[in-house]
């Protein structure tokens, strides 16, 4: 059984994850900063407190399953995986490189632990829902966790999956919406409004919990409520900030799909309590 991190430890881990994200993006020279940083805290809570996983044995039959339906946030996905022991941290330095194994978007064949390849938005939630149904057919006690973007909810397939999960009363699935209100072209409400999200999910017969997606107390409480909710699926609407933790990235949609350059990375690392050199060395040696 892995040790569950407490709130202070989760905060410290999330800081390390953010350092990983900035560092790997800087060396990659491309990739998605904004959503990775906005979903860091929830992801950290999942990987280091909530989920029953065995990173050294990714196919562990009793495992909970996790699906980032927003496949483009590979910086946070790979950081969480490396930090929890699925693979060595030095692999992060070859993110998006030909001689590395960490693809720009998740690839099942290259990375044990990735349940399913993804990156075309709107598909991962359906896969998660299918895994939840299969688990229930087997009377398996696992829980299934899906992470969606708010812009991603513009995909029609999302609502097919939302309808399906409620129809089959799948209470073993918990979905987190990284509600940072930004997408690549601008503000979600300007591009294609999704408001009111809570009412939408409620009308689809889901249990809806709205939280501050950067507050670990609220995250853990929401996950607990989701577990105790029977007969319907739960969605956690996590109010988050695009680029959270790096001042010049916060709340700017322009950081959706861009990495920091070296100078920006130095500033970001300083804000995160390290230097690019120090954190690079840390990753190289772990």
């Amino acid at each position, binding site marked *: 059984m892995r040790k569950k991190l407490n709130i202070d430890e989760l905060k410290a881990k999330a800081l390390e994850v953010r350092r990983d994200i900035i560092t790997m993006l800087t060396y990659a020279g491309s990739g998605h900063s904004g959503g990775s940083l906005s979903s860091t805290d929830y992801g950290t809570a999942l990987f280091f407190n909530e989920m029953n996983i065995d990173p050294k044995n990714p196919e562990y039959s009793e495992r909970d399953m996790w699906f980032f339906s927003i496949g483009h946030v590979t910086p946070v996905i790979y950081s969480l995986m490396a930090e929890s022991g699925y693979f060595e941290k030095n692999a992060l330095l070859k993110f998006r490189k030909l001689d590395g194994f960490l693809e720009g978007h998740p690839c099942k064949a290259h990375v044990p632990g990735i349940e399913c390849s993804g990156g075309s938005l709107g*598909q991962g939630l359906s896969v998660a829902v*299918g895994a939840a149904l299969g688990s229930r*057919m087997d009377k398996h006690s696992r829980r299934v966790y899906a992470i969606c973007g708010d812009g991603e909810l513009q995909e029609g397939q999302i609502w097919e999956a939302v309808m399906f999960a409620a129809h089959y009363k799948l209470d073993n699935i918990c979905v987190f919406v990284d509600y940072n209100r930004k997408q690549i072209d601008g503000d979600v409400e300007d591009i294609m409004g999704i408001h009111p999200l809570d009412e939408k999910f409620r009308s689809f017969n889901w249990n809806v919990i709205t939280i501050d997606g950067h507050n670990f107390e609220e995250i853990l409480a929401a996950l607990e409520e989701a577990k105790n909710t029977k007969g319907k699926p739960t969605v956690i609407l996590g109010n988050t900030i695009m680029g959270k933790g790096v001042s010049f990235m916060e709340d700017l949609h322009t950081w959706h799909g861009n990495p920091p350059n070296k100078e920006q990375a130095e500033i970001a690392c300083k804000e995160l309590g390290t230097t690019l050199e120090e954190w690079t060395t840390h990753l190289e040696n772990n």
Partner: protein
Amino acid sequence: MPEMKKTREGWGKGLVALGDENPNVVVLTADLNGSTMCNFFAEKYPERFVQVGIAEQNMMCVAAGLSLTGKVPFLATYGAFASTRSLDQIRITVAYSNLNVKIGGAHGGISVGPDGATHQAMEEFAIIRSIPNMTVICPSDIHETRKATIAAGNTFGPFYLRFGRENVPVVTNEDTPFQIGKAIEMASGSDLTIIACGMMVYEALVAAEELGKNGISARVLNMHTIKPIDREAIIKACEETGAIVTAEEHQIHGGLGGAVSEVVVQNSPVPMELVAVKDRFGKSGKPSELMKAFGLTSKEIIEASQKVLKRKK
């Protein structure tokens, strides 16, 4: 006239046979339970049947999720939808992840009839065979469809099976061996080889018999597996008969004819003629009328054979 049966019935019976043997086999459909004949399975194993409603994209990915929990999901909808509407889901979720998902593309080809072009899937071979990891099968009759369904269930990986709506001639029997990727020689011959799939295998056999009356010896290969294609049988046909005609109920671009050509030109070039739908959409009509109107009968295979023999050196 030969015995006539529906290939989709072979799918339905194959699913039940698999369900009897393997408790992990599950079946999904998007509001087409009856017409895809998944209902045989649904009635016998309701707890392993998943109705998805009219949501093909979701169905593809739900099947993918089921496969991750150790299930062997078979899904069916019309091929017109399976191969296009849920194509992104096939490409990225199913094929890129190499998941154990079996896709039944029902009502394939122009022989669907009066529903018209929207429902006549004639591009699936080209679309699906271009995707890595996919296996594509188009069985010729009810028995072969049953065997192909069972073989897909017993072989790991993503599969696309195409079958039709109408009664079609039965050209194999219960005992004809079926092996994925291995063509069946339905008639021996030395002057040319007709390579066909699906209901065109019967038309090829009729054509070969007619050609025989005029002293032309035509080999007939039932190429039920479009991908991985039986290269060995194709190369052997080139070397031993020196001319090839392909016949398929599919667009002329990228289908069986294309797949065979790729092997022929890279190994043992011989003249070829392709009998297929000539880059046009289908239309409403009776199945038999449409097969004639779109040039998918033994008559066109005979003409193509005569043409290819003239080009043969």
